[in-house]
């Protein structure tokens, strides 16, 4: 009971009650988005830095909106326009920012472990907004909040995570979170995109889309990450799309009529999802984005709103 952590680095380190507390807090904060004046004074005087070494639309924007709705001052740092281009190292840049006394640093980096490195180095709270192919905890939390709102519970739900599992930090964070909350998870994709030993995370593996989506409650489609791919993992985009792209026909003949279609974004339209599915009635992709702001408000509030001891 109660939040005691200084950082949010992984879903793996959280226990079920901490995950539920984060989701409950986010759910209670959703109401702020519907107000005429979208601002509460909770984090007045706190400084939050978005330290992004990789491009991002929804994660960076939603952390920024979340911080601003809570009245924190939010500073955006992106590697492109900074001293990084002059050769400053990651740690030196981070220490420079820490010298300006932020309360929370939100970090995205292409290397696994970047957030943990900062947590060990800097005095402030660190939020992992994606580190390499390792973890992306706030994405998993918003996925879980979306699922709970649509299905009303977690227990016994079956989720298929489909596509480029090997490169996906979202898949890893989702698997940890879903397993801890009592859900069954099947990962599916071409063998070259399924990481070895993935079964050790407590998931089933399938190498055929049609089998993987049968009788599941949720289908989480992953983005094919061209930018992280060395050659030879898939024969061609066209072939990938034919076998692993989700279309209305495949849904109609293999999936349950009440299945939820989720995607962490950005969607490669026509590759992993046909536009009819992405924009169709099963899709909750934009709900995920809306929940993302609430989840990030919850995370920032619990980390930055709990400094200090009782007087």
């Amino acid at each position: 009971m109660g939040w005691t952590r200084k950082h949010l680095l992984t879903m793996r380190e959280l226990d079920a009650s901490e995950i539920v507390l984060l989701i409950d807090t986010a759910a209670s904060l959703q109401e702020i988005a519907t107000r005429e004046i979208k601002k509460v004074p909770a984090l007045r005087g706190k400084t939050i830095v978005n330290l992004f070494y990789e491009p991002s639309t929804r994660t960076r924007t939603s952390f920024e909106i979340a911080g601003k709705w809570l009245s924190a001052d939010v500073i955006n740092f992106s590697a492109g326009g900074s001293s990084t281009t002059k050769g400053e190292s990651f740690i030196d840049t981070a220490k420079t920012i820490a010298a300006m006394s932020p309360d929370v640093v939100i970090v995205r980096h292409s290397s696994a472990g970047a957030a943990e490195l900062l947590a060990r180095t800097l005095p402030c709270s660190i939020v992992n907004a994606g580190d390499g192919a390792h973890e992306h905890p706030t994405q998993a939390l918003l996925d879980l909040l979306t699922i709970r709102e649509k299905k009303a519970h977690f227990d016994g739900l079956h989720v298929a995570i489909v596509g480029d599992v090997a490169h996906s930090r979202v898949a890893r964070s989702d698997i940890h979170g879903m397993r801890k909350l009592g859900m069954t998870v099947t990962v599916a994709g071409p063998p070259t995109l399924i990481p070895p030993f993935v079964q050790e995370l407590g998931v089933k593996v399938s190498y055929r889309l049609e089998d993987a989506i049968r009788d599941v409650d949720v289908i989480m489609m992953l983005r094919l990450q061209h930018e992280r791919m060395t050659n030879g993992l898939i024969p061609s985009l066209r072939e990938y799309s034919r076998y692993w792209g989700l279309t209305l026909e495949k849904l109609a003949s293999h999936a349950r009529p009440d299945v939820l279609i989720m995607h962490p974004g950005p969607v490669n339209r026509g590759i992993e999802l046909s536009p009819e599915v992405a924009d169709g009635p099963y899709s909750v992709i934009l709900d995920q984005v809306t929940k993302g702001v609430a989840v990030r408000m919850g995370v920032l509030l619990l980390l930055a709103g709990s400094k200090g001891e009782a007087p």
Partner: protein
Amino acid sequence: MASSVPRFREKAQVLDEAALDRALTRIAHEILEKNGGASEVAFVGLRTRGVTLAHRLAAKIAQIDGAALPVGTLDITLYRDDLGLRGAPLIRGTDIPFSIKNKTVILVDDVLFTGRTVRAALDAIIDLGRPKAIQLAILIDRGHRELPIRPDYVGKNLPTSRRESVAVRLREHDGEDRVVIEEPEEA
């Protein structure tokens, strides 16, 4: 934190079930009298027991006047002046499913003490819109104000010492309707 939370024991009963009910009935009449009826009046209860009391007051007014007044729930955690001093905040959510614009909002809480909770609630309500007026209904006013805040409707004025605590027990939460003063056990 809180390594030395004192345990409290009951010192005296302040209100029994009948007296509590009479106090709420009187407040309901006073609300109608002061506002010349129940039109454009809305209740906002402070979590947790303020919400229950707000529902009871609305039910009383429905009996007396026939008017069904809206009741909202306010969580003032995001507006506290001691946020972060008591460990991680626990947010339970605000739910006011009606417009408070141009309404007379009756803010309801169980105990009025320092006034800091009411200060936070005033800010929270005004962030949701511009009410015509805000009035404050309190079951127990125990004194020791730290801010210039004064209730419009009081169930009972109860002089207390700071070391005592006032426990409002309501059927919906505690299985009984009763108000008691508690004092710390042997320090």
